């Protein structure tokens, strides 16, 4: 039980947000209160005074709580929250793990297919670098969550948005590559109309290879993001429940 349990319970009652946004806000405010409390203790205040000062320095007015609700209640954030919050059933998690494993195998097979990597051309480089970035973030986040078990509230979600961003970026880069090489092909056809068939065929092969690689790697990164997100939400929920417990 936290020294701020009563305040946090009151805050929880006043927050008109669904889970897991409510747990996340509670954890953040609890973390802030604890940090302030420690700070005042270090300045020589007693525990009681430090507690009072900490509460005085945090704005828990109705307006401030409404602002918090707005910050955490955007449509995308709400969608992600509700999605992650209920991804509880074992069969759904098992399916997710199976899909990720399948994705790893598929991506490995596609990357092994040398002609396809070649067909993807120079644009495979930025896509590949982004995928590598996503892999590093995934690995680091998995290590922190599952091995290091660092569940500090402010660090829990660090890197997740980056992972999702990298996943989307891969797909955007691939479409960019398709568009740019398409423009190049059209120019080439304008110069040499007789080679239109060959140039179009090369462009299609290049584009499709790039899209396959980017989509499969992006989809894989997206699934890993979802898997990690459900884990984070689950941790947040447990931590918040512990805070509010008697």
């Amino acid at each position, binding site marked *: 039980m936290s020294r701020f349990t009563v305040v946090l319970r009151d805050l929880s009652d006043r927050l008109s947000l*669904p*889970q897991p946004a409510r747990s996340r806000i509670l954890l953040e405010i609890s973390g802030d209160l604890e940090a302030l409390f420690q700070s005042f203790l270090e300045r020589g205040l007693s525990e009681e005074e430090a507690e009072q000062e900490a509460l005085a320095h945090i704005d828990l007015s109705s307006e401030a709580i409404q602002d918090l609700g707005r910050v955490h209640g955007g449509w995308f954030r709400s*969608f992600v929250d*509700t*999605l992650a*919050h*209920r*991804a509880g059933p074992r069969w*759904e998690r098992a*399916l997710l793990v199976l*899909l990720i494993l*399948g994705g790893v195998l598929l991506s490995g097979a596609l990357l092994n297919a040398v002609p*396809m990597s070649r*067909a993807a051309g120079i644009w495979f480089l930025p896509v590949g670098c982004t995928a590598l970035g996503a892999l590093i973030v995934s690995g680091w986040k998995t290590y922190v969550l599952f091995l290091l078990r660092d569940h500090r509230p402010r660090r829990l979600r660090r890197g997740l948005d980056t992972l999702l961003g990298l996943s989307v970026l891969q797909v955007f880069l691939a479409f960019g590559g398709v568009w740019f090489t398409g423009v190049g092909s059209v120019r080439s056809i304008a110069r040499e109309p007789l080679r239109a068939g060959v140039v179009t*065929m090369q462009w*299609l*092969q290049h584009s*499709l*290879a790039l*899209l*396959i690689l980017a*989509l*499969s790697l*992006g*989809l894989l990164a*997206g*699934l890993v993001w*979802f898997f990690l997100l459900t884990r984070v939400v689950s941790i947040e929920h447990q931590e918040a429940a512990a805070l509010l417990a008697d």
Partner: protein
Amino acid sequence: MLRIIGYAGPWAFPLATLTAVLAVLIVRAFVRTVTSRKGDPAQMAGLGSAILFWGFVSAALGFLGQCDALYRLMGVVVTAPALSPEVMAEGFGGSFVPTLWGAGLLLVSGLAWLAFSRIGRTGARVLAMLALPLIVIMGCGNATSQAPTDITQGVWVGSGGADQFLFDLRGSVPDSLFGVVHVLHAGKKSSELPITRASYNAPDIEMFIQSTNATYKGRVELDKGRIRGGLSFGGQPGSQMELRWSDPSGLPGYRALAGAGPYTYREPTAGDDGWQVASPEDVGLDRGALEALVNAVAQNEAGLIQSLLVVRDGKLVMDEYFHGYGTADVHPIASVTKSVSGLLVGAALDRGLISGLDTPLLQFFPMKPSVVDPGWEKETLHHLMSMSMGLDWTREEMDGVHGTGEDFFLRVLSRKVANSPGTRWDYVSANVDLLAGVLYNATGKHADVFAKEVLFIPLGIQAYDWEYGKVDGYDLMDGSLQLRPRDMAKIGTMVADGGRWNGKQVIGEAWIDEFTKLHFQTGEPLGGYGDLWWLGELPSSGGMEPMIVANGWGSQLIVIFPRLDMVVVTTGGNESNGRHLDIGPVLARYLLSTM
């Protein structure tokens, strides 16, 4: 439904899994909506979000599936540029199936999300009630179409290398079964192998294919739609081959025509290969008769026909392809090669490179075997071309010996002369193969090089292949040339016009007349034989119509009707089904009867 799954290929598995997941989530959300009196908006929103998430995953996976399918299609097109437009169109169209499947799931999941998390319980109930029967119907459709109820239903598909084998059984169980194996290669139906004997005593099945001396034995699992077994050849153990039950109509190349419904006439495209095209009315042909002819061919009345072309008055009137083949395909023309080889002799005679058809054959072969039968002194080029050399080949050797190159020529030259040359007709491919040596000695060029110079370039023939069986540059003259059907039709039109193509003399008319003159009645179905060209007749409205034929095994035919100024060309895959000349009665019934 099976067809859709077939088109989705390997992507069908994850998409089907996601379909099942979404169905379960939607049903569960529906049950909760209906049974929960209070309702829990947060829980419903969570369920709705999950449904939407898997919908997005399905859509992304579906699009990935289409990219993959298109990439593979591009690979096939690059390695086989002669792929027919119909097959390419079918592949292109089929590639959209995963995307449409995934997009459909996204649409359904979007509606479900809207219902369960946005518009409240009443809306959710209404939508769910509408969606549920649909899901049940789709499920039932799947369940009923997954397996056959009878061994003769649909076809059983097995794979061997790049080929697909479709076992198509007819008749009644247990021992009055018969059927055919359709062989599909790269989206084209290449041949038909009759199942000459079959027996089915559930669950064991045995099928014998005489033309390849192959037997398939297996155990039928009707409920699972599969036969587990293997092929053996001549009693020797062969390879395992599992057969999967399938609706064949979606398999590229299985159906004769790509479109649905009966054939409607379409005028050929002129292209840039020198052909003038015309409508049937322009050249006095009946459009309905041509349509009936194509429909009859598409209905398998002439066995496996892969192309059908009709030329009249020197103009291309019909240029149709079946079972995945197309204009650009070069096709093995089997013994039509012999007739083309004969034309090359004509070109050499025109140029004075050969003095005459009565030139002794031995003059063309400086290297001779140690012992040459004295009868060879009387053998002439004419005896070779009219199949009347009278050598002592056995019946098996006449049918089965082929070859080229100097060693092979020595092998032929060492045969004894059993009958006086010019007195007895025997169809011997090995004798014709001597023409490779004759032409090289006379012209200083191998047959393919000479053919390009004197025949292919003047006729505008650019796509051909004469590589198979070549030895030290000598071509196999009895049956290894490959041509496009449109180019076969040029050769037929040139012969019909006394050796002229588009007004220009390519082969001397006198030699054309000589080659197409009757020298022997053969006793074969086609009747007469000239110099490497067959002579026969077919019934027409005006009595028996004479024809000159370049006749290649399997329905590779150039049929010239001189009196009608008409040429018909076919290519086919009737090598093993005994239907090599079935196109003759079909032509007579549907086309000649109207002229």
